[in-house]
């Protein structure tokens, strides 16, 4: 079992930095491409969602990302001190409505719910803690 821990600033430019570190980690750990792609997507959707929606005070915040390889898949933990938000409660949008409006609201969370299993959420001491497990076997 190997662990990657990253501290990210709450700005979109961080996506490139953590994307490179994550790709290197998954490659070094021999994570197969199909699983690595799903892990990258789940993490990017979680982190972008935090950056875009968790904060409304105009200040830069810190997001903690913890990725660990486990038997059967990869476990992901994302922590932030933004507004309380439980991603399990998000409802998948009606796709027809999204095409009619030309928007993608809720689609990222729908992707997370489809690609990850054991999605859990805790609110501890004013912090959001989301855990997801992406399995070798496609859900």
């Amino acid at each position, binding site marked *: 079992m190997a662990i990657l821990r990253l501290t990210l600033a709450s700005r979109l430019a961080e996506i490139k930095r953590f994307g490179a570190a994550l790709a290197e980690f998954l490659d070094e750990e021999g994570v197969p491409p199909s699983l690595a792609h799903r892990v990258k997507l789940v993490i990017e959707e979680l982190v972008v969602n935090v950056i875009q929606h968790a904060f409304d005070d105009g200040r830069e915040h810190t997001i903690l990302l913890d990725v660990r390889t486990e038997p059967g898949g990869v476990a992901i933990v994302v922590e932030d001190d933004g507004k309380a938000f439980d991603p399990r409660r998000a409802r998948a949008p009606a796709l027809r409505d999204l095409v009619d409006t030309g928007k993608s609201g809720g689609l990222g969370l729908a*992707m997370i719910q489809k690609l990850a299993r054991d999605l859990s959420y805790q609110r501890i001491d004013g912090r959001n803690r989301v855990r997801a497990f992406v399995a070798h076997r496609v859900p």
Partner: protein
Amino acid sequence: MNIELIVVPTSENVSHVQLVGRLDVLAMKEIDVRFHGETAARERSAIVDLSRLEFITSLGIGMLFGCAKSLRRRGQTMVLLGSTGFVDTALRTVGVHEVIPFATTLDEARRLARDARS
């Protein structure tokens, strides 16, 4: 560069573009305006070749939806061509194939684009 938008010359009355690379949040912000300019703004059906796209996120899919909406309002359509591997999996995971036509060959894409106008 994460993403590249290639305009494919065509004699047909459709737009044809190819997306190459990663369509994540940063890439989407980089090419969104140009993508709409080369597809929806032309007011004719568009073939979007995804065969060389390696990665796509929900915001990238949102960009496709925005284009599809604009074209649909004008009685035109967008056809997604040649998605493979992870990109195809990601699109089908959330059901994009249920609302935007997919094609595996250029001939099929052209036919679907033509059918939308007839």
